[in-house]
Every structure is written in C-alpha cells, then in structure tokens.
C-alpha cells in the first residue's frame, strides 16, 4: 500500500487545480478545445445530491471523471471571526450552527476546550448526560445519512424512512433542550438543564423502536443486489491514502483502519462503556454505508449502558463565576443577582493560554483550538471540521469513475456544508 497517488502535484493528480478565471477562459478559446476530448463540467451548488451548497468542477472524458475540484465557501459566514466577538457563554450558540446535523458535538468540543483553559472539573452526571445526548445525536446524524444516501442513489422511499426515525430522536432532543437543532445545550461547566422526569422511558422507547427499523433498512438496502451493485467497489481508497489526506471518521475506518477517538483517547466517560469500533475492509462506498448503519447499533448499545449507569448529582458545576445561579436564587439573594448579571453582561474571564480539545463526531475528529488572552472572549477559535478535511478525499475517490458514481461518492463522504464553510 502506498499513498503516492494522493501526493501528486501535476496533471496526473486527481485534484483539478484550476481557478475560476482559468476555467472560464478555456471555453472562450476554440483552439484549446480541438486537440482534447476533455470537457469541463460544473455540478452544483444547487444540485440535489450535493448536500447543500457543494459545487464540483469536473474534468470529464466522456462519462469518466478525470480530475475534479470541490469548490466550497458558499455558506461561509465567518463563524471563527464571530467567535472572537462573542463571550465564552455565547460561544456555544455560534459553534452549534456549524455542523447542523450533529450540533451537540461542536458544543461539546468547544465546552471541553473552554473547561481545559479554566481548569474546570465537571460533575459526573453532567459528563454522562453529555455522553447520552452525543450518542443519540450520532444516531440521528447517521439516520440522516441513511436518508440522504438512499435518496441520492434513487432509493427515494429510504429518504422518508430515515427522516422518520431521525424525527423520533429529535423529539427527545426537543424535550430535553427545547430545540430540535442548534441546541446550545452543552455549555462550559456542564449542560443547560437536567434531563426531564421520565427521560429513561423516552429513551427506552427509542431504543425499542429503532432496531426493527434498522432491520428493515437491511432488507431494503443492505442485501439488495441493486444497492450493492451501485456501491460496492465504487470510490475506493486504501488506509495509507486516507491517513495521508488526514481523513478521519467513517471515511478512514472504511479502509480497515480502526481509528476512533472514543477508544483511542477516551474523553467524557467512554472508558466506562463497552462498544466496538466498526471498520470496513475495502474502503468503498458500501463500507462507508455499512459502517454508519452499524454505528447506529453501537450507539444504541452505549445508550443502554448509559441508562443503567447514569449517576445522580448536579448537571453543572456550581461555580458562580462560570454557571448562572438557579432562577429561584435570584429572587432571594443579592449576590446571586450580581453573579447572574455579571455572567450575562461581561461573561467570565478565562486564563490566558491555548488548548486543543477533540471529540469523535459522526464525521470524524472534531477539534477546537482555542487561544485566550485572559479576557471573557476567545482571542482565537478554530474548528477542525472533519467534513472540511474529508472533502479532500473526494477527487481521489472520484478519479476514473463514472459521473453517476460521483453522486454516490459525495453522499458517502457525508459532508455537512455548514461545517465545511463555517
């Protein structure tokens, strides 16, 4: 195995390194077209299979993709710049909007980084609540993948089924956080609110409801010849290439390389639960589909253990400088009112320094690099978005494949454009 293929610079590389201006010049000059059968084709940003606003510049030879270039930035709203204007408490409302399919993971990474700078130890129950919510979020995110992957490949009824199951998970999120997405639930110091009464029953209901539906997916897709024909052997990459391209998550695991931060570098309380890291063996689109399907099952296994092990106690740290006092205390205590006022007007100061915290999001390693200069606003916040980096594998996966397979490849990399563009 070698990664030589992905390190090429010249015309034999899979990446089309062509600017907008150069691309538009090609069509204007009739002489350059004559000696070449190749055609430049634009795909997106408003194509139903491009997961939002991904745009691809494809160099085609007939129906074969020779080189390609993902063109991104259509959703760029300067969230890293904006983070410098917001306090640490407000920071979560910003980062949660990046990966809108799994918002809790970005909140978690940001909170972990802030807590590392603060030197804050969070209560056990808060840790386990975070784990519960993140695993449920992993399920909802992968269910969304099932839906869009099915739709992209023509299994349109799959879209309805995937959304239907995801909806059940979102309904639980709404009960806990008040919102279906962009929760701002995991915050530095713990979580925003304790789990509601009877949450166990709700979660158990989910865990009973989803496995039979996953078995339906197996019947509908996994063993189905058309589905296999469409995915197996499409978009193949080996482990060396995936690592060279910094790919993480299901894209890396599909090559047979077992990398999962929950196991390699346990954060929260992942060292206290049992689960398997799902890996593929061929590194093709089918493996990436099967990994996500089985990760839903592993997440459910983790959630069952969390229900059994959920400790009692506080859901956030009782540090008056970091978390606001309970509403009832504000009526009774002048100090509580002052703390409340201080936290929500100027925020809390975070010691100067820099840190990096990372979690395993449904798309791979999601990291937050945080630099503080001792004020209540981050001096610099950088998010290592797994979608942004996994996107680099796309030209290599598409090389010498058919354009129809390109759609399957975009879908199987599962980029969330909000996180790519930030």
């Amino acid at each position: 195995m070698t990664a030589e293929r992905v390190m090429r610079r010249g015309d034999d590389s899979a990446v089309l390194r062509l600017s907008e201006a150069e691309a538009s010049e090609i069509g204007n000059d009739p002489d350059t077209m004559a000696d070449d059968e190749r055609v430049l084709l634009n795909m997106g940003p408003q194509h139903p299979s491009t997961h939002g606003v991904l745009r691809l510049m494809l160099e085609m030879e007939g129906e074969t993709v020779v080189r390609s270039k993902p063109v991104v930035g259509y959703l760029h709203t300067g969230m890293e710049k904006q983070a410098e204007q917001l306090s640490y408490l407000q920071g979560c409302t910003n980062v949660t909007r990046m990966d809108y399919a799994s918002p809790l993971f970005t909140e978690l990474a940001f909170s972990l980084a802030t807590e590392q700078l603060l030197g804050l130890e969070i209560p056990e129950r808060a840790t386990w609540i975070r784990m519960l919510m993140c695993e449920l979020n992993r399920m909802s995110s992968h269910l969304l993948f099932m839906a869009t992957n099915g739709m992209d490949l023509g299994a349109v009824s799959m879209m309805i089924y995937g959304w239907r199951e995801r909806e059940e998970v979102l309904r639980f999120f709404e009960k806990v956080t008040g919102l279906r997405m962009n929760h701002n639930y995991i915050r530095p110091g713990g979580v925003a609110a304790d789990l509601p009464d009877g949450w166990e029953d709700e979660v158990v209901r989910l865990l009973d409801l989803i496995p039979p539906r996953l078995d339906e997916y197996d019947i509908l897709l996994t063993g189905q010849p058309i589905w296999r024909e469409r995915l197996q052997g499409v978009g193949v990459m080996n482990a060396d290439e995936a690592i060279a391209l910094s790919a993480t998550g299901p894209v890396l695991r599909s090559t047979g390389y077992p990398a999962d931060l929950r196991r390699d570098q346990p954060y929260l309380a992942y060292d206290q639960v049992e689960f398997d890291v799902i890996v593929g063996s061929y590194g093709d689109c089918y493996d990436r589909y099967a990994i996500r399907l089985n990760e839903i099952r592993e997440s459910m296994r983790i959630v069952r253990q969390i229900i059994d092990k959920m400790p009692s106690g506080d859901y956030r740290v009782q540090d008056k400088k970091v978390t606001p006092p309970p509403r009832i205390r504000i009526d009774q205590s002048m100090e509580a009112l002052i703390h409340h006022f201080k936290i929500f007007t100027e925020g809390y100061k975070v010691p100067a320094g820099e840190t990096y915290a990372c979690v395993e999001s449904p798309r791979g390693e999601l990291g937050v690099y945080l630099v503080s200069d001792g004020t209540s606003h981050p001096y610099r916040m950088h998010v290592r978005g797994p979608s942004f980096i996994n996107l680099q594998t796309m030209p290599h996966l598409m090389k010498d494949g058919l354009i129809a397979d390109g759609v399957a490849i975009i879908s199987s990399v599962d980029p969330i454009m909000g996180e790519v563009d930030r």
Partner: protein
Amino acid sequence: MVADDDTSTADDEAEGDATTAEHDAPATRYGGIIDPIGTDVVLHTDVATYSDLAAAAKADGFVQLVDLTAVDYLTYAAPRGLPAGVVAERFEVVTQLRNPDSGERIRIRVQVPADAPAVATLFDLWPGSENLEREVYDMFGIDFVDHPDMSRILMPDDWVGHPLRKDYAVGEIPVQFKAASNIR
C-alpha cells in the same frame, strides 16, 4: 493500538540532541523548543527550521496531520508566554500532528513575521494539508511556499483582505457583490 501514554511523553524528550548536557539550554525535540508549561506537547520553531522539524516528526511516526491553522497575535493583551529562545512574531502557524500507533500528539507553533508572512508547505509530507493551508492563506494572508494551488478557498477569488487578521474590521466593510448588470 492503545492511547495510554499521553502523559508519559514529557519524559522522553530529554534525549533531544546536543542540549542534554546543559541545564539552562531549552529542551528540544526534532529541533523545536519544548514548551514546559503546557499539558500538551508543544514545540516552538521558526520559519527556517519548520519543514525540517515536520519531516523529522513524520519520520518518527507522526504520519497523521490533524490540523493546521494560524493565529494573529497583533492585539494579544496578555504576555505571550513563549519559552526562552523563541522570538515572538505577529503570526503563528499551528500544526497538530498525531502518531496513530501510539496515539501521541504534538503541536508545532511556528513564529511567522508580519513583514514576510511565508512558510514552507507541508503538502509533500502530508497532502491533507492542501485545503488547510489554502484556508490559512485565505484568512490570514500567509503564503505557503511551493504549495500546488495557493488560492483562496472560502472567500471569493477577487476578495480583498484577509478576514481573520486582527486589523480586519468587523462589520464595517460593505459586501462585495459581483457586478451584475440590470437585465430588466
């Protein structure tokens, strides 16, 4: 592979070449000065030695480039807290590497001067740095020498300025719409 040795790495670094004899000389690893304060392993270096350091780290097993970004320290209010021997510059390029076999991570902080913001590209070591370096170029205006496609990635090609620089104002620049003639 088990990632249990994150804390033990601080001890291994004493073997850095040539400086072990003297106590007051800073400890080094792959030629970068180790930051003794941080809990993570942080290596400080400058533009000249950056690519050698990166190559040495890769040869030693850090085959995965995790992240590459930059920080503009123009308006940093606190003391920089850099170890002795590191000359503070306006920009810092921050590269995170991981050894997938041991799970160990290192962070390389490169001081990049404001008057000539350019460092060597890591593309030939880790092709995964391509988009990350383009993003840093786009947001900070730091040039990566010998990069295969040094162009903007998130902002439009004809954008003026580098938004994540600290002297780039917030909200005071009108949106640059591309010229569109009124077709009605």
